[in-house]
Protein backbone atom coordinates (compact mmCIF):
# COMPACT_ATOMS: atom_id res chain seq x y z
CA UNK A 1 0.00 0.00 0.00
CA UNK A 2 1.34 3.38 -0.99
CA UNK A 3 0.63 5.66 1.96
CA UNK A 4 1.88 8.81 0.30
CA UNK A 5 -0.52 8.32 -2.59
CA UNK A 6 -3.41 7.62 -0.24
CA UNK A 7 -2.64 10.73 1.79
CA UNK A 8 -2.49 12.84 -1.33
CA UNK A 9 -5.82 11.37 -2.52
CA UNK A 10 -7.36 12.31 0.79
CA UNK A 11 -6.01 15.87 0.61
CA UNK A 12 -7.20 16.46 -2.96
CA UNK A 13 -10.75 15.31 -2.26
CA UNK A 14 -10.83 17.13 1.06
CA UNK A 15 -10.00 20.33 -0.82
CA UNK A 16 -12.65 19.65 -3.44
CA UNK A 17 -15.24 18.91 -0.75
CA UNK A 18 -14.31 22.03 1.19
CA UNK A 19 -14.41 24.48 -1.69
CA UNK A 20 -17.32 23.54 -3.94
CA UNK A 21 -20.68 25.01 -3.23
CA UNK A 22 -23.86 23.37 -4.45
CA UNK A 23 -22.28 20.00 -5.18
CA UNK A 24 -23.22 17.87 -8.16
CA UNK A 25 -22.00 19.00 -11.54
CA UNK A 26 -20.43 22.12 -10.03
CA UNK A 27 -17.76 19.75 -8.75
CA UNK A 28 -16.72 18.24 -12.08
CA UNK A 29 -14.48 21.12 -13.32
CA UNK A 30 -12.62 21.21 -10.00
CA UNK A 31 -12.16 17.42 -10.02
CA UNK A 32 -10.85 17.65 -13.59
CA UNK A 33 -8.36 20.38 -12.65
CA UNK A 34 -7.04 18.62 -9.55
CA UNK A 35 -6.87 15.02 -10.75
CA UNK A 36 -6.16 15.42 -14.48
CA UNK A 37 -4.15 18.63 -14.84
CA UNK A 38 -2.30 18.76 -11.53
CA UNK A 39 -1.88 15.17 -10.37
CA UNK A 40 -2.20 13.42 -13.76
CA UNK A 41 -3.88 10.46 -12.02
CA UNK A 42 -6.52 10.07 -14.71
CA UNK A 43 -7.25 11.48 -18.19
CA UNK A 44 -9.94 13.73 -19.64
CA UNK A 45 -11.62 10.63 -21.07
CA UNK A 46 -11.90 9.25 -17.54
CA UNK A 47 -13.68 12.43 -16.48
CA UNK A 48 -16.29 11.92 -19.20
CA UNK A 49 -16.59 8.33 -18.05
CA UNK A 50 -17.15 9.47 -14.47
CA UNK A 51 -19.95 11.79 -15.54
CA UNK A 52 -21.56 8.96 -17.52
CA UNK A 53 -21.29 6.58 -14.55
CA UNK A 54 -22.55 9.16 -12.08
CA UNK A 55 -25.62 9.69 -14.24
CA UNK A 56 -26.53 6.03 -14.41
CA UNK A 57 -25.74 4.93 -10.86
CA UNK A 58 -27.51 5.97 -7.67
CA UNK A 59 -26.13 8.44 -5.21
CA UNK A 60 -24.59 11.90 -5.17
CA UNK A 61 -22.29 12.71 -8.10
CA UNK A 62 -19.54 13.92 -5.76
CA UNK A 63 -19.39 10.57 -3.96
CA UNK A 64 -19.51 8.62 -7.23
CA UNK A 65 -16.59 10.66 -8.57
CA UNK A 66 -14.48 10.42 -5.42
CA UNK A 67 -14.97 6.65 -5.17
CA UNK A 68 -14.25 6.12 -8.87
CA UNK A 69 -11.06 8.21 -9.00
CA UNK A 70 -9.84 6.78 -5.71
CA UNK A 71 -10.35 3.26 -7.02
CA UNK A 72 -8.54 4.01 -10.29
CA UNK A 73 -5.58 5.50 -8.45
CA UNK A 74 -5.13 3.12 -5.52
CA UNK A 75 -7.77 0.37 -5.54
CA UNK A 76 -10.20 -0.22 -2.66
CA UNK A 77 -8.26 1.81 -0.08
CA UNK A 78 -7.98 4.65 -2.56
CA UNK A 79 -11.74 4.63 -3.02
CA UNK A 80 -12.27 4.65 0.74
CA UNK A 81 -9.80 7.46 1.42
CA UNK A 82 -11.05 9.60 -1.50
CA UNK A 83 -14.67 9.27 -0.40
CA UNK A 84 -13.77 10.03 3.21
CA UNK A 85 -11.91 13.15 2.10
CA UNK A 86 -14.92 14.30 0.10
CA UNK A 87 -17.40 13.77 2.94
CA UNK A 88 -15.40 15.10 5.90
CA UNK A 89 -15.49 18.89 5.20
CA UNK A 90 -19.27 19.14 4.77
CA UNK A 91 -19.86 16.73 7.62
CA UNK A 92 -17.80 18.82 10.03
CA UNK A 93 -19.19 22.17 8.90
CA UNK A 94 -22.82 21.04 9.02
CA UNK A 95 -22.42 19.38 12.40
CA UNK A 96 -21.18 22.69 13.83
CA UNK A 97 -23.91 24.67 12.08
CA UNK A 98 -26.69 22.37 13.27
CA UNK A 99 -25.86 23.28 16.87
CA UNK A 100 -25.65 27.00 16.22
CA UNK A 101 -28.72 27.12 13.96
CA UNK A 102 -31.24 26.20 16.64
CA UNK A 103 -30.05 28.96 19.00
CA UNK A 104 -29.82 31.34 16.10
CA UNK A 105 -33.46 30.75 15.11
CA UNK A 106 -34.65 32.18 18.44
CA UNK A 107 -33.70 35.67 17.25
CA UNK A 108 -36.61 37.56 15.69
CA UNK A 109 -34.60 39.09 12.84
CA UNK A 110 -33.31 35.64 11.90
CA UNK A 111 -36.88 34.31 11.78
CA UNK A 112 -37.83 37.15 9.44
CA UNK A 113 -34.76 36.41 7.34
CA UNK A 114 -35.74 32.76 6.99
CA UNK A 115 -39.33 33.73 6.09
CA UNK A 116 -37.79 35.50 3.12
CA UNK A 117 -35.24 32.79 2.44
CA UNK A 118 -37.93 30.09 2.13
CA UNK A 119 -39.55 32.03 -0.71
CA UNK A 120 -36.10 32.37 -2.32
CA UNK A 121 -35.46 28.63 -1.98
CA UNK A 122 -38.75 27.95 -3.77
CA UNK A 123 -37.37 29.94 -6.71
CA UNK A 124 -34.10 27.97 -6.62
CA UNK A 125 -36.00 24.66 -6.76
CA UNK A 126 -38.06 25.99 -9.67
CA UNK A 127 -34.82 26.78 -11.51
CA UNK A 128 -33.43 23.31 -10.75
CA UNK A 129 -36.65 21.77 -12.06
CA UNK A 130 -36.35 23.81 -15.26
CA UNK A 131 -32.72 22.71 -15.76
CA UNK A 132 -33.64 19.04 -15.28
CA UNK A 133 -36.59 19.42 -17.66
CA UNK A 134 -34.22 20.66 -20.35
CA UNK A 135 -31.81 17.75 -19.81
CA UNK A 136 -34.49 15.02 -19.69
CA UNK A 137 -35.15 12.95 -22.83
CA UNK A 138 -37.80 14.39 -25.16
CA UNK A 139 -40.76 12.49 -26.57
CA UNK A 140 -44.24 11.42 -25.62
CA UNK A 141 -43.16 8.51 -23.40
CA UNK A 142 -40.83 10.73 -21.41
CA UNK A 143 -43.55 13.34 -20.86
CA UNK A 144 -45.99 10.63 -19.78
CA UNK A 145 -43.50 9.35 -17.20
CA UNK A 146 -42.94 12.90 -15.90
CA UNK A 147 -46.68 13.43 -15.49
CA UNK A 148 -47.16 9.93 -14.09
CA UNK A 149 -44.46 10.34 -11.43
CA UNK A 150 -45.93 13.70 -10.42
CA UNK A 151 -49.52 12.43 -10.20
CA UNK A 152 -48.69 9.17 -8.43
CA UNK A 153 -46.85 11.17 -5.75
CA UNK A 154 -49.18 14.14 -5.33
CA UNK A 155 -52.64 12.70 -6.04
CA UNK A 156 -52.28 9.02 -5.18
CA UNK A 157 -49.76 9.48 -2.37
CA UNK A 158 -47.56 6.63 -3.56
CA UNK A 159 -44.36 5.91 -1.71
CA UNK A 160 -41.61 7.60 -3.79
CA UNK A 161 -39.49 4.43 -3.86
CA UNK A 162 -42.32 2.62 -5.65
CA UNK A 163 -42.75 5.52 -8.07
CA UNK A 164 -39.04 5.33 -8.95
CA UNK A 165 -39.15 1.55 -9.44
CA UNK A 166 -42.31 1.82 -11.58
CA UNK A 167 -40.76 4.51 -13.79
CA UNK A 168 -37.54 2.51 -14.26
CA UNK A 169 -39.61 -0.51 -15.26
CA UNK A 170 -41.70 1.59 -17.66
CA UNK A 171 -38.52 2.87 -19.30
CA UNK A 172 -37.02 -0.63 -19.47
CA UNK A 173 -40.12 -2.30 -20.93
CA UNK A 174 -40.72 0.40 -23.51
CA UNK A 175 -37.09 0.39 -24.64
CA UNK A 176 -37.18 -3.41 -25.00
CA UNK A 177 -40.37 -3.17 -27.07
CA UNK A 178 -38.79 -0.49 -29.29
CA UNK A 179 -35.66 -2.61 -29.73
CA UNK A 180 -37.70 -5.69 -30.65
CA UNK A 181 -39.74 -3.76 -33.23
CA UNK A 182 -36.57 -2.30 -34.74
CA UNK A 183 -35.11 -5.80 -34.92
CA UNK A 184 -37.98 -7.16 -37.00
Amino acid sequence: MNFRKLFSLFCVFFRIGAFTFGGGYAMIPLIQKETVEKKKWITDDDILEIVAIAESTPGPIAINAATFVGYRVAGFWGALVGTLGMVLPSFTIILLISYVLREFLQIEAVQFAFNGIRAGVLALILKALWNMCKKAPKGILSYCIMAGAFLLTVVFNWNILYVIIACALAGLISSLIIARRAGK
Partner: protein
Amino acid sequence: MIFLELFWTFFKIGAFTFGGGYAMLPLIQEAVLTKGWAEPEALINFIAVSESTPGPFAINMATYIGAEVGGVFGSVCATLGVVMPSFIVILLVARFFEKFKESRIVKGCMSGLKPAVVGLIGAALLSVAVTVFIPEGFTLSIFTDPQTYLSLAIFGVSAFLAFRKIHPIAIICLSAALGILGGYVL
Protein backbone atom coordinates in the same frame (compact mmCIF):
# COMPACT_ATOMS: atom_id res chain seq x y z
CA MET B 1 -33.32 1.85 17.48
CA ILE B 2 -32.97 5.36 16.14
CA PHE B 3 -29.40 5.03 14.84
CA LEU B 4 -30.20 1.97 12.78
CA GLU B 5 -33.33 3.67 11.46
CA LEU B 6 -31.32 6.75 10.47
CA PHE B 7 -28.76 4.59 8.68
CA TRP B 8 -31.35 2.49 6.86
CA THR B 9 -33.53 5.47 5.85
CA PHE B 10 -30.59 7.35 4.36
CA PHE B 11 -29.23 4.16 2.79
CA LYS B 12 -32.51 3.85 0.88
CA ILE B 13 -32.36 7.54 -0.08
CA GLY B 14 -28.81 7.09 -1.37
CA ALA B 15 -29.74 3.96 -3.28
CA PHE B 16 -32.75 5.46 -5.05
CA THR B 17 -31.48 8.91 -6.05
CA PHE B 18 -30.34 9.24 -9.62
CA GLY B 19 -28.69 12.48 -10.72
CA GLY B 20 -27.24 14.92 -8.26
CA GLY B 21 -28.40 17.80 -6.16
CA TYR B 22 -32.13 18.38 -5.86
CA ALA B 23 -32.94 14.92 -7.23
CA MET B 24 -32.57 13.82 -3.63
CA LEU B 25 -35.06 16.35 -2.28
CA PRO B 26 -38.32 14.41 -2.88
CA LEU B 27 -37.00 11.32 -1.10
CA ILE B 28 -35.60 13.29 1.82
CA GLN B 29 -38.83 15.23 2.13
CA GLU B 30 -40.95 12.09 2.21
CA ALA B 31 -38.77 10.23 4.71
CA VAL B 32 -38.11 13.14 7.05
CA LEU B 33 -41.64 14.55 7.12
CA THR B 34 -43.47 11.24 7.54
CA LYS B 35 -41.15 10.24 10.38
CA GLY B 36 -41.51 13.67 11.94
CA TRP B 37 -37.74 14.18 12.02
CA ALA B 38 -38.07 17.84 11.00
CA GLU B 39 -40.76 20.45 10.39
CA PRO B 40 -41.43 21.40 6.75
CA GLU B 41 -40.19 24.93 7.44
CA ALA B 42 -36.99 23.66 9.06
CA LEU B 43 -36.32 21.47 6.03
CA ILE B 44 -36.62 24.40 3.62
CA ASN B 45 -34.50 26.60 5.88
CA PHE B 46 -31.86 23.93 5.76
CA ILE B 47 -31.91 23.78 1.95
CA ALA B 48 -30.74 27.39 2.08
CA VAL B 49 -28.02 26.54 4.61
CA SER B 50 -26.92 23.66 2.40
CA GLU B 51 -26.70 25.90 -0.67
CA SER B 52 -24.52 28.35 1.25
CA THR B 53 -22.07 25.83 2.69
CA PRO B 54 -19.57 23.75 0.73
CA GLY B 55 -20.03 20.10 -0.11
CA PRO B 56 -22.65 17.93 -1.75
CA PHE B 57 -26.31 18.56 -0.90
CA ALA B 58 -26.87 14.91 0.06
CA ILE B 59 -24.08 14.87 2.65
CA ASN B 60 -25.19 18.18 4.14
CA MET B 61 -28.78 16.96 4.44
CA ALA B 62 -27.88 13.60 5.96
CA THR B 63 -25.52 15.18 8.48
CA TYR B 64 -28.07 17.81 9.50
CA ILE B 65 -31.04 15.47 9.91
CA GLY B 66 -28.84 12.93 11.68
CA ALA B 67 -27.62 15.57 14.12
CA GLU B 68 -31.15 16.87 14.77
CA VAL B 69 -32.47 13.38 15.51
CA GLY B 70 -29.54 11.58 17.11
CA GLY B 71 -26.68 13.98 17.84
CA VAL B 72 -23.14 13.37 16.60
CA PHE B 73 -23.53 9.60 16.32
CA GLY B 74 -26.85 10.09 14.54
CA SER B 75 -25.21 12.25 11.91
CA VAL B 76 -22.43 9.68 11.46
CA CYS B 77 -25.06 6.97 10.85
CA ALA B 78 -27.14 9.04 8.41
CA THR B 79 -24.09 10.19 6.43
CA LEU B 80 -22.66 6.69 6.29
CA GLY B 81 -26.03 5.47 5.06
CA VAL B 82 -26.34 7.98 2.25
CA VAL B 83 -22.75 7.40 1.07
CA MET B 84 -22.69 3.59 1.23
CA PRO B 85 -24.88 2.70 -1.81
CA SER B 86 -22.89 4.83 -4.28
CA PHE B 87 -19.62 3.64 -2.78
CA ILE B 88 -20.55 -0.02 -3.22
CA VAL B 89 -22.10 0.41 -6.68
CA ILE B 90 -19.10 2.36 -8.02
CA LEU B 91 -16.67 -0.25 -6.70
CA LEU B 92 -18.65 -2.93 -8.52
CA VAL B 93 -19.11 -0.91 -11.70
CA ALA B 94 -15.50 0.33 -11.91
CA ARG B 95 -14.38 -3.23 -12.71
CA PHE B 96 -16.60 -3.80 -15.70
CA PHE B 97 -17.63 -0.35 -16.77
CA GLU B 98 -17.65 -1.00 -20.53
CA LYS B 99 -20.21 -3.76 -20.19
CA PHE B 100 -22.27 -1.67 -17.80
CA LYS B 101 -22.29 1.35 -20.10
CA GLU B 102 -23.52 -0.65 -23.11
CA SER B 103 -26.04 -2.66 -21.11
CA ARG B 104 -29.50 -2.42 -22.65
CA ILE B 105 -31.11 -2.92 -19.27
CA VAL B 106 -29.26 -0.01 -17.68
CA LYS B 107 -30.05 2.25 -20.63
CA GLY B 108 -33.71 1.23 -20.58
CA CYS B 109 -34.08 1.92 -16.86
CA MET B 110 -32.34 5.29 -17.23
CA SER B 111 -34.78 6.32 -19.98
CA GLY B 112 -37.53 5.96 -17.37
CA LEU B 113 -35.60 7.37 -14.41
CA LYS B 114 -34.56 10.67 -15.97
CA PRO B 115 -38.10 11.93 -16.61
CA ALA B 116 -39.24 10.41 -13.29
CA VAL B 117 -36.84 12.71 -11.41
CA VAL B 118 -38.42 15.71 -13.16
CA GLY B 119 -41.91 14.65 -12.08
CA LEU B 120 -40.77 13.99 -8.51
CA ILE B 121 -39.03 17.36 -8.18
CA GLY B 122 -42.24 18.91 -9.51
CA ALA B 123 -44.08 17.24 -6.62
CA ALA B 124 -41.42 18.45 -4.15
CA LEU B 125 -41.74 21.97 -5.54
CA LEU B 126 -45.49 21.89 -4.96
CA SER B 127 -45.09 20.79 -1.36
CA VAL B 128 -42.46 23.50 -0.70
CA ALA B 129 -44.81 26.07 -2.26
CA VAL B 130 -47.59 24.98 0.12
CA THR B 131 -45.24 25.40 3.10
CA VAL B 132 -44.14 28.85 1.91
CA PHE B 133 -47.49 30.34 0.93
CA ILE B 134 -50.09 28.53 3.06
CA PRO B 135 -48.24 27.19 6.12
CA GLU B 136 -51.45 27.11 8.21
CA GLY B 137 -53.51 25.39 5.51
CA PHE B 138 -55.79 27.04 2.97
CA THR B 139 -58.14 29.61 4.51
CA LEU B 140 -59.43 32.92 3.16
CA SER B 141 -57.25 34.77 5.66
CA ILE B 142 -54.18 34.18 3.49
CA PHE B 143 -55.55 36.82 1.08
CA THR B 144 -55.48 39.46 3.79
CA ASP B 145 -52.19 38.37 5.35
CA PRO B 146 -49.40 40.73 4.23
CA GLN B 147 -46.91 37.87 4.73
CA THR B 148 -48.46 36.08 1.72
CA TYR B 149 -47.79 39.05 -0.53
CA LEU B 150 -44.30 39.52 0.86
CA SER B 151 -43.50 35.85 0.11
CA LEU B 152 -44.97 36.18 -3.39
CA ALA B 153 -42.87 39.28 -4.07
CA ILE B 154 -39.64 37.66 -2.79
CA PHE B 155 -40.39 34.52 -4.81
CA GLY B 156 -40.97 36.61 -7.94
CA VAL B 157 -37.73 38.57 -7.58
CA SER B 158 -35.73 35.43 -6.73
CA ALA B 159 -37.14 33.48 -9.67
CA PHE B 160 -36.32 36.36 -12.03
CA LEU B 161 -32.72 36.46 -10.74
CA ALA B 162 -32.35 32.66 -10.73
CA PHE B 163 -33.28 32.48 -14.40
CA ARG B 164 -30.79 35.29 -15.05
CA LYS B 165 -28.15 32.86 -13.71
CA ILE B 166 -27.44 34.89 -10.56
CA HIS B 167 -25.57 32.75 -8.00
CA PRO B 168 -27.84 30.93 -5.49
CA ILE B 169 -25.95 32.36 -2.50
CA ALA B 170 -26.59 35.91 -3.75
CA ILE B 171 -30.29 35.07 -4.11
CA ILE B 172 -30.45 33.63 -0.59
CA CYS B 173 -28.75 36.75 0.85
CA LEU B 174 -31.14 39.05 -1.00
CA SER B 175 -34.25 37.15 0.07
CA ALA B 176 -32.99 37.17 3.68
CA ALA B 177 -32.57 40.94 3.52
CA LEU B 178 -36.04 41.39 1.99
CA GLY B 179 -37.49 39.06 4.63
CA ILE B 180 -36.00 41.12 7.47
CA LEU B 181 -37.07 44.40 5.88
CA GLY B 182 -40.60 43.13 5.28
CA GLY B 183 -40.83 41.59 8.74
CA TYR B 184 -40.15 44.89 10.50
CA VAL B 185 -42.17 47.08 8.12
CA LEU B 186 -45.31 44.93 8.02
